[in-house]
């Protein structure tokens, strides 16, 4: 006689409970310490009188009742029941979630997983319906809820692994939707995965409908993972050389498993192996390998660091692009160049600033070509450009920073350019007499000032402002002086950003340029006004990118329709009316992006790699999954083979023997009460 939950037989020990309860007569009087009673209500325990055992018949009845109860919970299965006989009152809605993320490539995980799913399909009884869904970072139902095993097997057979990471939440949302929509009396969720810890992103909303049986099938096995991978590649400028810039490529090589000595790492640039280095890898650790400096190529060149192939070859290479950091072109307009602003922008190469300086009268509209930001350093209107050209420059996405210093006479600004000012500019406030004003409030949540929020950032509180201009505006104020006047404002004109500073940037009206924070502040303001983004050298798989954002040249940023070629050769259209606006990177390697209709154009290259989290092979306890999906009060089944679990469940469900055993237990307890009452009338003994 097989039992569905044989562990409940341990409950037979409870046969001794009646004796203990009555003989020991120990009432628990020690209170249970608890951190706080703020969430607890007073619920006095019912006081019931109990009687001492005086009659062996009572013991027998109670013991039998306990045995019947234990057997009921153990859920015995009698005889053989055909799976096709009769009308099935216990039909099931089964949802199988199959993990196909990158980590499932390890060893025998994938064959084990598909075999487990096939087992589930084989156990489907008439009336049962099953949905097969695959998940990695996203989840897709591959079949509708169906009883057609041919459809299910075809979907399973067509399923392939991906290079993507793992996320449980989307998969659970699919399962929840399917199970909640079902009217089947039984709902079963089978999750076939290696249960990577990094994939755990479940919240309370992932709870399955009440009564759902959750069957996790862990295909990771007990044998430890043995894998080495290039986890990250860093490219930095060689600071030790004069002359043409050179780059140093270094890689972090991770190792899961036993220590390995003399592992060869290769640096390939443009398809050629430039250098090989050997590295010793500690057990379950990582080591860095640094290659010799290489010249910075003028155009982006794909590079990768590779290791010798192992059992999981997909993470043995890490792709990056080598290229000179693009420069942010700035047009600085001032009657005379101050000693601080240009040097502050010229320092650094992340990004590199390319500064052209002109006078307000000498500058022409041609100087705007290729610029990302215009800085009116002393506030004088650039008469050489003209209001229309400057306004069009900003409307098309250019940035404008204006310092309302001594030359910023609003009467000299043409009316056509008034939109480039945040509001009416009033008279100069002179506070030299009271030791100068200070900045009273900074919106450090704003991206232009966010760098000042970090504990290591500089502080602008020490800057003293002797003079500044009052700006008549109520919106877009990023910083205010201590008297409430606007110090820094932002407003949009078309697609461009305009930042206006109410004082000077050359030190004549304040000592701001002599503050340590001046340098990062100005660089950040210029980057923000230019809508500048640092192009990463590579992206993680699963990232969505907009081609216009990764194009550095202005003409390319205006392209609306692109054709992307994946490393496998697959082509995808991006942008336009009938295609997604962004390209989702799903393959490791170098992707090529060309403007639509220009197959011979020089491509924009995008490097993609396996997401770092997916290379963390540590797993979580599957008991957490069942607890999270079914709630704390639900009974979480173990990780049994789904097929065996299902067949026993089917048989037991048809027999429902537990019901009769419960009835027997109830009758025995009634009999016990009668006997106890009769015994009590003879010799009652109350506790």
């Amino acid at each position, binding site marked *: 006689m097989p039992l569905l939950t044989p562990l409940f037989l341990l409950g037979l020990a409870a046969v001794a409970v009646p004796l203990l309860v009555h003989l020991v007569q120990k009432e628990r009087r020690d209170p249970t310490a*608890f951190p706080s009673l703020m969430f607890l209500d007073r619920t006095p325990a019912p006081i019931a009188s109990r009687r001492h055992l005086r009659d062996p018949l009572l013991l027998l009845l109670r013991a039998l009742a306990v045995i019947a109860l234990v057997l009921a919970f153990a859920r015995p299965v009698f005889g053989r029941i055909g799976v096709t006989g009769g009308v099935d009152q216990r039909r099931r809605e089964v949802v199988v979630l199959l993990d196909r993320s990158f980590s499932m490539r390890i060893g025998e995980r994938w064959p084990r997983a598909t075999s487990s799913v096939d087992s589930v399909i084989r156990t489907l009884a008439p009336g049962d319906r099953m949905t097969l869904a695959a998940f990695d970072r996203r989840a897709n139902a591959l079949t509708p809820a169906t009883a057609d095993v041919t459809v299910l097997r075809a979907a399973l057979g067509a399923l392939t692994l991906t290079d993507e990471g793992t996320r449980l939440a989307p998969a659970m949302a699919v399962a929840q939707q399917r199970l909640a929509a079902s009217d089947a009396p039984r709902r079963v969720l089978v999750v076939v995965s290696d249960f990577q810890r990094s994939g755990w992103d479940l919240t309370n909303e992932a709870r399955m409908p009440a009564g759902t049986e959750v069957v996790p099938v862990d295909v990771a096995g007990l044998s430890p993972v043995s894998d080495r991978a290039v986890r990250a590649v860093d490219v930095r400028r060689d600071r030790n050389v004069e002359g043409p810039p050179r780059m140093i490529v270094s890689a972090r090589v991770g190792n899961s498993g036993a220590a390995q000595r003399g592992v060869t790492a290769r640096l390939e640039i443009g398809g050629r192996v430039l250098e090989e280095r050997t590295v010793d890898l500690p057990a379950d650790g990582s080591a860095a390998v*640094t290659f010799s400096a290489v010249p910075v190529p003028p155009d982006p060149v794909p590079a990768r660091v590779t290791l010798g192939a192992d059992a999981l070859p997909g993470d043995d290479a890490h792709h990056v692009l080598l290229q000179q950091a693009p420069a942010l072109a700035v047009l600085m307009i001032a009657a005379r160049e101050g000693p601080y602003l240009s040097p502050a922008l010229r320092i650094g190469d992340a990004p590199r600033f390319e500064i052209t300086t002109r006078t307000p009268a000498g500058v022409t509209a041609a100087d705007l070509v290729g610029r990302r930001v215009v800085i009116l350093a002393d506030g004088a209107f650039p008469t050489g450009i003209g209001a229309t050209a400057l306004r069009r420059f900003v409307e098309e996405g250019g940035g404008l920073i204006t310092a309302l210093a001594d030359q910023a006479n609003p009467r000299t600004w043409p009316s056509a350019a008034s939109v480039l000012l945040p509001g009416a500019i009033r008279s100069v406030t002179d506070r030299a007499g009271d030791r100068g004003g200070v900045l009273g409030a900074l919106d450090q949540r704003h991206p232009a000032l966010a760098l000042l929020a970090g504990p290591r950032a500089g502080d602008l509180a020490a800057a003293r402002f002797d003079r500044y201009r009052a700006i008549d505006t109520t919106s877009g104020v990023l910083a205010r002086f201590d008297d409430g006047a606007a110090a820094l404002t932002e407003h949009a004109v078309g697609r461009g950003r305009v930042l206006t500073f109410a004082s000077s940037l050359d030190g004549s009206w304040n000592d701001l340029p002599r503050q340590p924070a001046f*340098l990062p502040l100005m660089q950040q303001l210029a980057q923000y006004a230019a809508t500048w983004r640092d192009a990463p050298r590579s992206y993680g798989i699963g990232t969505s990118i907009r081609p216009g954002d990764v194009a550095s040249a202005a003409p390319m940023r205006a392209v609306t329709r692109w054709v992307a070629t994946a490393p496998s050769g697959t082509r995808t259209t991006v942008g336009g009316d009938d295609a997604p606006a962004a390209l989702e990177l799903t393959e490791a390697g170098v992707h090529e992006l060309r403007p639509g209709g220009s197959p011979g154009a020089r491509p924009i290259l995008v490097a993609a790699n396996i997401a770092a989290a997916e290379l963390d092979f540590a797993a979580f306890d599957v008991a957490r999954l069942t607890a999270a999906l079914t709630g704390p009060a639900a009974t979480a089944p173990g990780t049994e083979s789904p097929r065996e679990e299902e067949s026993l469940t089917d048989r037991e469900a048809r027999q429902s023997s537990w019901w009769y055993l419960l009835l027997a237990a109830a009758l025995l307890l009634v009999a016990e009460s009668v006997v106890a009452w009769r015994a009590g009338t003879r010799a009652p003994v109350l506790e």
Partner: protein
Amino acid sequence: MDPATLARIGNLELVARWVVEGFLAGLHRSPQLGVSTDFAEHRPYAPGDDIRHVDWRVFGRTERTYLKTYEAETNTSFTVLLDVSASMQYGHGGITKLAYAKLLAATLVWFSRRQRDRVGLVTFSGDLVEIVPPAARHLPHILHVLERATARGTGSLARPLLKVAQSQQRRGIFVLVSDLYEPAADVARALAPLTGAGHDVIVIQLLDAAEQTFPFEDATTFRDLESGARLPVSPAKVRERYLAAMAAHLAAMRTALSRSRVDYSLVDTSQPLDRVLFDYLLRREFLRTAV
């Protein structure tokens, strides 16, 4: 690393070092994570250096660019605010919340000191209990205070946090470790003096698994660890209400602290410390890869 096992070691310094070094050894990080050890000098700027470390005052005097990395790297104050109220003495499994909080605090402090931050510790209950102001050399003192910290008194955040905020001269990072048995709005109000002063505040709510699952079966009297109040409770009858109230409390806490722009995370004492450290660093964006 099982927290209960680590707690039995009893040597906080050893445990903290073990967790941090072991964690870093297995970290999948960029080679750029961490900084050079060349901190104690001015050196000429070179392309590629972080421009935030340029000594702009020296430039103003000499028109030459130098890096002042030493000052920049030791400028951050990192302070752990540790709740030592009596409720932290609770532990349904192998480790109490206070023991876990000590390990966590020691690990975070050790990690921050490894980053050359100035480290400090404040223990509090209804009021301040002990204060170790942030300083580069205070790590041994902090570990000593942690080792002898005991749970006592009735916890309340408002008074001690206000005192802490008033005593700070410069901005820093504060990590509050507490079980937060106060209404979420009160917690947000108590943190306001710190957040309002521009400090970077991180809240780690520490709970035992039993507080989240309420696994009790026997009807018995429950005693409040802080107030000593007693309440007869039949767990089967109140479990559902308790879990709902606790879930609502946690959700309200998350919402309120998120609105206050406070970095909040919930940790239970069964979680391995390296996992908590990983999550903490991930949230603090210290684990940027080189991609």
